[in-house]
C-alpha cells in the first residue's frame, strides 16, 4: 500500500476547496495478488 501519495484532500479552514475529492488509485501489478485463488467451475 502506498497511502501517503494519495491522501484525501482534507478540508482546510483557510482554503476551502470547491469540491471534496477522493482519489481512487488502481493498484499496480506488484500490489495485487499473484497467488492462485480461483473459484468457480
Amino acid at each position: 500500500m502506498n497511502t501517503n501519495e494519495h491522501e484525501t484532500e482534507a478540508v482546510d479552514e483557510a482554503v476551502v476547496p470547491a469540491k471534496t475529492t477522493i482519489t481512487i488509485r488502481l493498484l499496480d501489478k506488484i500490489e495485487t495478488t499473484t497467488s492462485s485463488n480461483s473459484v468457480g467451475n
Partner: protein
Amino acid sequence: MRLPRVKFEHRPHRYEDGTIRIGGEIYGIAAEIADPYGWAWTALTLMDGTRSLDEIIERLRLAHPELPDPESIVEQLAATRYVEDAAAVPPAGLSERERDRYSRNHAFFRTVDIVPRGHGWETQLRLKSARVVVLGLGGTGCHAAWALAAVGVGTIHCVDPDLVELSNLNRQVLYGEGDVGRPKAEAAVARLRTVNSDISVTGERRHIGSRRELDELIAGYDALALCADRPTGHDIRVWANRACAAAGIPWAGGGYNGPLVTVGCFAPGAGACYECLSSGEEARRHPGTPVDLGGPGVIATSAGVSGQLVAHALLGLLTGVPVPPVGTIQGVNLIAADHHVWVRHPPRPGCPVCGTRADGSEHNSMHRMTEIDAGRANRTRP
C-alpha cells in the same frame, strides 16, 4: 442512477489506517481509496441498493457533519466501475431464457467493465447484435467459433475449404469421428447450432485466394476472426489487415508455433496495424535470421488457447468489455511460465493502413472504436 449498489464482486474492505480496498485483488480492477476520515467508507456502506442517491447523501451528512459536501463524495463513487444500479430493469432485448443462459457472462462483464452501467446487460446486447466471420476452422478457428457461439455473438459465419480428417480430431473441438470426410464448414455449423440455438450460425466451404475475395467475404460484418494460415501466414494476414482497414472493422488473428501461442488485435484508426507490428519485429531481428514458422506440431491445449485468445480479443473489439489491447500482439509460451509476449511498435509514418497522412489526419474513421477509446481513457482513473 436510482439505487446505487456496490457490485458484489467489488465489495470493499477497510484497513486499520482507514484505507479502503475495493474491486478485489486483481490487477486492472482492484483499487485503493485513501479515506482517513471514513467518508468514502460510510458512503460505500450505504450503497447497498436500498437507498437513493439523495438518501445516501443525507445519511452521510448526518454521519459526518464535518464533511462540507457529502454529495460530492457520493457522486464520485457512484460514477465508478464499482457501483451498479439496483433499480435497473433487465432490457427487453433479451429473453428470460437468454438472461439465464448468459447469467455467468453478465457477472463476468460486470466484474471487468470499467464503465458504470445500468442493468449490466449492455455488453451482452452488443454481442447479440454483432456479426462475425470466422475464417479458418482448424485448431484455432474451431475453438474461436465455439467460444463466440457460447458467449452469444448473434451472427457467426464460418468459412473453410477443407474436409475433416482423422488427424484433426486431436485438437479441432467442433468435430467428431463421424465427421471425418465431411466439409469442415458444414460440420462446424451443425455443431455450433447445438451449442447455441439462440444465435444465427451460417457457413460455407470456400477457399479465400485473394484480397478481393476477402473484401467480399467480410462485407456487412462487424469483425473478422482470422484463424487461417493459408495462403502462407503472412499473405492472409496482410490481406486481413488491409481488407478490414478498408471496411472499417476490427479483426483478431491467432496462431501457434509449437508451444508459443499468440493473438493479434487490430482496429482501424487505433494503434499500429499488423504490417507495422510485423515490420517492427523484423527490424528487431538479427539481419538474415530466418523467420521460424514452426512445424505441424500442435495439441488440443495449444490450439485451444490460440482460439480462445482470438475469441477473447474479438469480444473486446466488439464491445469494449474488456478493453482490448488494440494494435498489439500478445501471447503465452506454454513451456515457459515467465514468458509473456506483448509485441508493440508504433505505426510506421506513412503506413497506408494505419499511419498518418501528410496533412496529419488519420487514414480511417474510427466510429466503431469511439466508445472503446473512451473506455481506455478512463482506465487509469475509473
